[in-house]
């Protein structure tokens, strides 16, 4: 597992109620790449990410992480190397204090308590909520919860970071902090987001999903600057690439 290549091959998934959420998704992500996954609401982004950590299993096709297929039997190995931040932070916080919540993962891997404390404090510090350490998570604001949820995953020191809309509900400063932090994270990152400016800043590669299918897969700058393509997928060019709304000057790209 030294090279964490992620390989998805013709993934198909239909929810039990008959809604087909993935319809033949194929891609390969090399070690150290950072990939943005964008697409309109209901495009299948969350569904795809859930396949990466084995919460859902494809009806057809297969997916593997570092040559290990994602199946029930390999989940412990997979989950040790892939850390996932869920779309809804409430799902990720379930202990009585923020500290315990962040410590939950490292403790499961039986790390010595000193090491656990170090990891918890440094992850809370990175997301900027060290001062909330002793608060119960369900009493935090939406953005604080989001930050705590990200910290829970950082404390696991994953090789691959999978995030479902990490910047939603964050205030500009926390969003900036998150982007800076993610830039420093040199392992593989996969980020599903509607925050296209963040995708532009963080990911050199972008995959556009629409109705459970990959529409394009290529260099972020090329894709996000393609107005026609973006329009077609129900998206909009990131502000950073649009003309200045005041003086009308086109931004140089």
């Amino acid at each position, binding site marked *: 597992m030294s090279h964490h290549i992620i390989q998805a091959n013709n993934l198909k998934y239909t929810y039990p109620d008959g809604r087909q959420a993935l319809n033949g998704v194929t891609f390969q992500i090399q070690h150290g790449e950072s990939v943005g996954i964008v697409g309109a609401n209901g495009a299948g982004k969350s569904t795809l990410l859930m396949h990466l*950590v084995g*919460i859902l299993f494809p009806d057809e096709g297969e997916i593997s992480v570092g040559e290990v297929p994602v199946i029930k039997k390999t*989940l*412990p190995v997979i*989950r*040790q190397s892939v*850390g*996932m931040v*869920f779309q*809804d932070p*409430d*799902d*990720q916080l*379930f*202990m*009585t*204090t923020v500290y*315990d919540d962040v*410590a*939950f*993962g490292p*403790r*499961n*891997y*039986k790390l010595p*308590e000193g090491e*656990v404390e170090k990891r918890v404090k440094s992850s809370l510090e990175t997301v900027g909520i060290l001062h909330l350490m*002793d608060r*119960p998570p*369900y009493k935090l604001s939406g953005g604080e919860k989001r930050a705590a949820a990200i910290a*829970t*995953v950082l404390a*696991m020191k994953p090789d691959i970071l999978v995030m479902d809309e990490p910047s939603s509900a964050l205030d500009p400063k926390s969003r900036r902090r998150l982007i800076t932090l993610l830039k420093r994270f040199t392992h593989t990152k996969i980020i599903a987001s509607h925050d296209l400016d963040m995708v532009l800043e963080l990911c050199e590669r972008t995959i556009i999903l629409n109705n459970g299918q990959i529409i394009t897969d290529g260099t972020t700058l090329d894709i996000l600057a393609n107005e026609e393509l973006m329009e077609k997928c129900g998206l909009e060019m990131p502000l950073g690439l649009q003309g200045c709304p005041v003086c009308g000057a086109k931004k140089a790209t």
Partner: protein
Amino acid sequence: MSNMIASLYNIRLLDELAEKRTIIHNIHPLIKVLTTCVYLIVVVSFNKYELSGLLPLVFYPVIIIALADIPIVPLLKRMLVVAPFIIGIGLFNPLFDHSPMVVLPWIQISGGWISFFSILLKGVLTILAALVLIATTGMTRIAAALGMMRVPRVFILQLLLTYRYISVLIEEVGRTVRAYSLRSRGEKGIRFSDWGSLTGQLLIRTLERAQRVYHSMCCRGFAGDYNVGSEKRIQIGDILYFTGWGLYFVVIRYFNIPAAIGSLITGV
């Protein structure tokens, strides 16, 4: 309506209390669980006419509540929820059991009433002891203590997840009720015709949410053990705590102290 939501959200109060730092909170979880077990056994072992013998057992929860700085009102509110059941169990005793019993030399009451009150007292004491244990220890640490007592993992996990599920359920109830009340033009309560769809919704939503929570636990390496971090060693103080209460309970079990004092005073 907002009142109801506020009290629903209070469900986690016990968890929050458990994070306090008092003498009682600092006692080793295993010791507290064991002490509570002994207490429960002693309370239950009294027969139904031994009302006066039970009285000294009231001191245990009272002292712990005082030392652990637990607010009494929320605790009593939680007791009220179970009170109807206890009363229901004992209700018919006074009707059917008229045998006269001597409480103190100058007072006679029918055996039915005595057994009614002793059931009531036993119920209150056992529930109070359990609540106090949770409020001073916390569910996760209780689970760890049960693990040390070699209780099978399946049961412990069941206990923990059920406990989590209750708060998930109640939070969903809170959200649903709030969303409903915002759109129901100030009506009080929930219209009967909407009950069916609301409860159905709730069930599905909580199940899904519980599942997502469980998934996120698994994603972080959860394999059936709740780890609560540094395990404290059992210390001299803990052992003293246990033997102290243990002795007290045993003495109360075998000597009816209130009766002894009563007879001392009346000189019989």
